[in-house]
């Protein structure tokens, strides 16, 4: 018996009924695991539907725009092999183009009208919209070749190989154009990537502005929140609870109400300016412009995001016993020394959590800059919203959104390198 046990030492352990112990264990825990999984199913479904799918779709839309091939499927295939170096395409390709145009003009299906194509090309060559509507209108009348001459007769611009080169690019489903546009670049006439004209460079400057304004807002939040959190964490519970309610009060007020309150406060005929004029600190005609610019955005956003800094700081400070500072003091450290060497390092997880939270919220903030930002204080999200809601250039909006997402992820990565994400403490 003992011999058998020894010789079987390498064999898997068996349960009393002879099945391997591991299998038996898996069997008994399976029900538990299933139940645990079932509990998460609603959340998983919700996340997939409301988060994974939309983001995936956004990412996809930013580089996939089938407007060209949808409107002119045959032409899209025909022009694929064409080489722009040989001048305008051959008449066979142009014939397909003309028939596709004529067919597209009659098409009323959403996404397949000539207007869709014209819009798409217009992104690449501003002002080219009329060329397409005009050509499409007359394309049906072209019955015999040479088709090229017929086109040139409609509009001289068809004689330009670069127009065809653009068309070739536009009819490809997968494109980098929107990322180029989102980073203030474009294809020039010969198809190479260049910076956009100075007048049209708007996205990168706004992205930079978004980043530094977020950083500024984060820094201001930190400067304001740190002493407040310290006070909250050291006061007796009754007082600190009362103060905590004051901190949380903005949370319970509608965002719109808060932002509007800032408008009432900061505008030229607002409370602050009125008081300053009344106290004769400033003259009536030199009232300070504090809203509808960067200042307004920063003030309102610091106010709104402050709780997100205070709460993690407070919860971390709450866990630091006062005996630490006392111990440092008893060992001879001055208040400043004890604070910088003992207290401050222990609040770093809270600082990390707070700054990360505020920065990421700020970088994607939309409603407040839209209301109080004027034209100066706009952030990248406002441009994205514009493209989604007004200009309906969803692909460009998606590309900007993706770039924003990447920027956030890069910051998160840098942050992780500097602080370590497992060091974060939200409470």
């Amino acid at each position, binding site marked *: 018996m003992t011999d058998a046990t020894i010789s079987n030492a390498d064999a898997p352990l068996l349960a009393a009924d002879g099945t391997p112990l591991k299998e038996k264990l898996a069997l008994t825990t399976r029900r538990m695991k299933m139940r645990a999984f079932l509990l998460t199913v609603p959340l998983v479904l919700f996340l997939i539907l409301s988060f994974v799918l939309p983001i995936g779709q956004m990412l996809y839309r930013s580089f996939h725009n089938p407007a060209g091939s949808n409107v002119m499927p045959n032409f899209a295939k025909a022009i694929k092999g064409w080489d722009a170096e040989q001048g305008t395409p051959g008449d066979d390709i142009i014939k397909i183009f003309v028939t596709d145009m004529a067919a597209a003009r009659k098409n009323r299906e959403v996404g397949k009208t000539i207007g869709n194509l014209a819009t798409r090309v217009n992104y690449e060559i501003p002002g080219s919209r009329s060329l397409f509507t005009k050509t499409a209108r007359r394309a049906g009348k072209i019955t015999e070749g040479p088709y090229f001459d017929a086109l040139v007769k409609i509009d001289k611009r068809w004689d330009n190989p670069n127009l065809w080169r653009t068309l070739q690019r536009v009819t490809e489903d997968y494109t980098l154009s929107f990322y180029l546009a989102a980073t203030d670049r474009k294809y020039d006439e010969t198809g190479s990537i260049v910076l956009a004209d100075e007048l049209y460079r708007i996205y990168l400057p706004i992205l930079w502005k978004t980043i530094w304004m977020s950083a500024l807002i984060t820094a201001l939040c930190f400067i304001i929140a740190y002493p407040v959190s310290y006070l909250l964490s050291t006061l007796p519970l009754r007082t600190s609870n009362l103060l905590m309610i004051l901190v949380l009060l903005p949370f319970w007020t509608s965002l719109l109400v808060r932002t509007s309150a800032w408008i009432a406060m900061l505008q030229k005929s607002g409370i602050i300016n009125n008081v300053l004029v009344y106290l004769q600190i400033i003259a009536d005609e030199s009232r300070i412009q504090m809203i509808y610019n960067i200042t307004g955005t920063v003030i309102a956003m610091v106010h709104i995001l402050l709780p997100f800094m205070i709460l993690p700081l407070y919860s971390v400070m709450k866990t630091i016993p006062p005996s630490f500072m*006392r111990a*440092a003091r*008893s*060992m*001879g450290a001055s208040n400043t*020394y004890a604070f910088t060497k003992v207290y401050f390092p*222990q609040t770093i997880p809270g600082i990390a959590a707070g700054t990360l939270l505020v920065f990421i919220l700020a970088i994607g903030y939309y409603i407040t800059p839209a209301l109080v930002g004027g034209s100066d204080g706009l952030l990248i999200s406002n441009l994205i919203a514009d493209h989604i809601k007004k200009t309906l250039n969803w692909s460009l909006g998606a590309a900007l959104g993706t770039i924003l997402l990447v920027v956030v992820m890069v910051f998160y990565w840098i942050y992780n390198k500097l602080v370590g994400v497992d060091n974060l403490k939200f409470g």
Partner: protein
Amino acid sequence: MSLAAQQSADLDTQAFVRFEKVQKSYDGEILVVKDLNLDIPEGEFLTMLGPSGSGKTTSLMMLAGFEPATHGEIYLGGESINNVPPNKRGIGMVFQNYALFPHMTVAENLAFPLHVRNMNKSEVEAKVQRALEMVELPAMGGRRPAQLSGGQQQRVAVARALVFDPKLILMDEPLGALDKQLREQMQYEIKHIHENLGVTVVYVTHDQAEALTMSDRIAVFEDGVIQQLSTPDDLYERPQNSFVAQFIGENNKLHGKVSKIDGDIASVDLDGGGSVRAAAINVGGVGDRTTLSLRPERVEIEPAEGATDNAITGEILELIYLGDHIRTRMNVSGNTEFIVKVPNNAGNKPLAEGAKVKVGWQATDCRALDPLT
């Protein structure tokens, strides 16, 4: 004798630590420390013992400098330190939960007070290593406090309080978080460190066994006042009032009225019937109420006739076998919590629950103190 010499002679005779008429109130309504006068000579291990809220920790915090005294003076080495901030007092302190800095290694923790004093690197290293060896953790310098066991953290905390060679060490219930066995071991270790280094230690605890084990003298605090300040044996054997008798060690109480005082001996009529003779320690006159204090090990079961000053009949309610002795709970003169420790001797008659037996004790072992209600 010159004035300076006169002054230094005064300093020598003065206590190392002195509380003089110290009062403390947090809210202006209640005095947490009522009138504290306490002299601690250099090199002494003094324990402030008392229940929570008795003012012992507040007194310690005033000495450390974390709480200002509302009234009175505190002297350290002959100089008033009322206006000296804690970092200038040069007092080492061990906190209840050790207060080891979690973001520093053990060695960095120990080096902290040395860095504050701008000591050079080699000196710091030597001192840290010596401190680690003193608490028998020579190889733990690179660890973080969280990686140490409770007992090891405790030792590091002690080492950190000692590493900068302070003359005075304060300990605020430092062993409270340890389990019983470790606590007892650490009591001896701290005591030995104290003996070896000759520093003055002021130790705060609510655990009377700990106080008895470690201290040279114990100050029993209650209600903001020192009830008694004596050596451990004095405190146990000669409590001056009922609170101390009750708080230190196990104690049998008997309530009664003084019927006669004859020198040191008072005769007391017990409320539950019977009359006994007791040492008159803290009683008023004839007719005043008193509470008698009697240690369980001083009571004898079935004493020989005339061998004890007092003899009274009681009923055995419960017997608990504890090996070396049998803990016997009795009803004596109406007190149903009367405990007698009966030594487990070969010749003893077996006891039975419900039996009526005679118990006796000497008058000097029974102290008549202030009445407890």
